[in-house]
């Protein structure tokens, strides 16, 4: 399954777990996914661990974790060796330069899509938080840990206050 996941395994994971093998219901899957999303780290890897352990205990977790990571890691290592040996070849350099331009474009598109609902709500505080993190990390290049230690409590506090206000 891991090999099917060009650019993101999630869609394939959902299809196989829910539709094909019926290992989980759609609700269970969403719940597990939400949990893995709010924890730090690569969320699809977390998902594999939680999912495997729900089925077969810790052994299942380890099996799913290894199954997801091992094949692509091996492929990646082979690519790394190829890059180390031929990375300076002119043709390869040009192709990679083209691909990285496109990859950056894709990333911008993802950011744009995720941002649209936030912009629509016109939540000034949320937009300021987003721009603040962007400036601190992207422009000023501050260390991630320091920025997040300030930004996460701040954002949670603001969200909490806003929800209270909406509820009241």
């Amino acid at each position, binding site marked *: 399954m891991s*090999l099917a*996941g*060009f*650019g*993101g*395994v999630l869609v394939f994971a959902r299809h196989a777990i829910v539709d094909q093998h019926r290992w989980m219901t759609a609700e269970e899957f969403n719940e597990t996914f*939400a*949990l*893995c999303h*709010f*924890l*730090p*780290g*690569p969320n*699809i*890897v*977390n998902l594999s*661990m*939680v999912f495997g352990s729900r089925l077969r205990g810790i052994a299942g*977790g380890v099996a799913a*974790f290894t199954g997801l*990571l091992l*094949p*692509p*890691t091996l*492929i*990646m*290592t082979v*690519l*790394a060796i190829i*890059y180390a040996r031929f990375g300076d070849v002119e043709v390869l350099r*040009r192709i*990679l*330069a*083209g691909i*990285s*331009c*496109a*990859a*950056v*474009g*894709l*990333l*911008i*598109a993802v950011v*744009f899509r*995720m*941002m649209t609902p936030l912009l629509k709500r016109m939540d000034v505080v949320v937009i300021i938080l*987003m721009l603040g*993190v962007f400036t601190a*990390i*992207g*422009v000023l*290049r501050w*260390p*991630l840990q320091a920025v*997040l230690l300030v930004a*996460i409590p701040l954002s*949670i506090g603001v969200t*909490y206050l806003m929800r209270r206000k909406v509820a009241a």
Partner: protein
Amino acid sequence: MSSENPIWALISTFGLMSLFAVGGAAAAVPEMHRIAVDLHHWMTDKQFADAYAIAQLSPGPNVLIVTLIGYAVAGIPGALAATLAMCLPTALLAYYVSRLLNRPSQSRWPGLIQAALVPLSIGLMAASALILAQSTDRNIAALLLTATVAVIASVARINPLWLLLAGGVLGFAGIV
């Protein structure tokens, strides 16, 4: 183990970083760049952008850019060490938290924390895009390609792989 050992540096770096990577791998790219390029000089700016491109193009979770960084630092052991350090701590954390929350909890805290993290992870991903663009988009043609892909991918549901391949072809033709 001394702090001079590159494998140890990889493990401590990525192990710690993984716990702060809210919003997935793309959010951690600026920090990887800061550590691998600016701090330790493990790679050049160009190598880092190449590694990102390779990780996007290859199958598997795109967090595996750390495999490439690890290999550049310390060969195959480095590649394995970096991958495990990035993935294992949070996977274990996820395992224990999921056991704690085995029943669907009535608490609104998970939903609230998640909502609070969304703007932060978008900000982080935007920063990733900026940092990568600074190293890839050195001329007008490259900038145009990035902008075009961004627009196409925003409005159309097209498999990203085709756009990456198109970028590769343009690069091969020497246009970008």
